[in-house]
């Protein structure tokens, strides 16, 4: 019962956030909408017993990533409203048609038992730090180390992109 109420309320919030992200003229409003959606998703994580993940979502996604987005929006100075005219011919109709098809596809997929069937019998999982940690350092240790490497590469790349560009401009 409780879960149902939570689902409906935060489901609507999530959808509202998503739609406002797509529709808002002001990119800052879009960022706000997305943050709203992310919070709702964190709530869903909790109701699915993924507590650790929910915390990580709030801290990293809603906290770091979205903040970074806002940062760049402000830096670039596109916080003003943008032009609404569509340049590419047929883009809007095609996009809507395609999305409709995709939605239909999803609905059809929902008919399949493996997508929306009853819960598999077994020990209910618990998304605690211990559970995730045990699994992470047992079966998933390699991907874990590789993602560490990935982060280093990403950071290096970002520094390189930002740093050298500045040198070029000053030199030219």
């Amino acid at each position: 019962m409780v879960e149902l109420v939570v689902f409906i309320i935060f489901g609507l919030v999530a959808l509202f956030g998503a739609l406002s992200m797509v529709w808002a003229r002001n990119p800052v409003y879009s960022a706000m909408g997305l943050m709203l959606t992310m919070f709702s998703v964190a709530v869903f994580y909790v109701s699915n017993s993924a507590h650790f993940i929910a915390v990580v979502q709030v801290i990293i996604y809603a906290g770091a990533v979205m903040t970074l987005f806002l940062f760049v929006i402000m830096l670039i100075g596109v916080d003003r409203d943008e032009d609404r005219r569509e340049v590419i011919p047929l883009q809007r109709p095609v996009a809507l048609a395609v999305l409709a098809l995709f939605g239909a596809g999803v609905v059809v997929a929902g008919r399949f038992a493996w997508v929306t069937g009853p819960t598999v019998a077994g020990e209910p999982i618990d998304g605690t730090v211990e559970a995730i940690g045990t699994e992470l350092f047992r079966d998933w240790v390699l991907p874990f180390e590789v993602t560490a490497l990935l982060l280093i590469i990403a950071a290096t790349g970002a520094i390189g992109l930002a740093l050298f560009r500045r040198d070029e401009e000053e030199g030219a």
Partner: protein
Amino acid sequence: MTVTPGWYMALAAALFVIGAGGILLRRNALVMFMSVELMLNAVNLTFVAAGRELNVIDGQISVLFVMVVAAAEVVVGLAIIVAVFRRRHTASVDELSELKG
């Protein structure tokens, strides 16, 4: 009426479609990027729901990795957008259309 994992998956699908719409319909590079993040979130939600359905912890582990990669991607993507903006003084992706046939 209990809330089965299927419901969450349906909601995630809806978020995913909205995110795809954002990419196709918005011109601002940052908004497009945010739509990508939305899609990633939808996928994460699907993973968690599926993990709950199958009673394995692997769903959540996958989410962890997706988040890590998404974070790395955001770093690099934003750096690119900033660099492009410095050259062209526009954040509209439609301006960047030289590679046409």
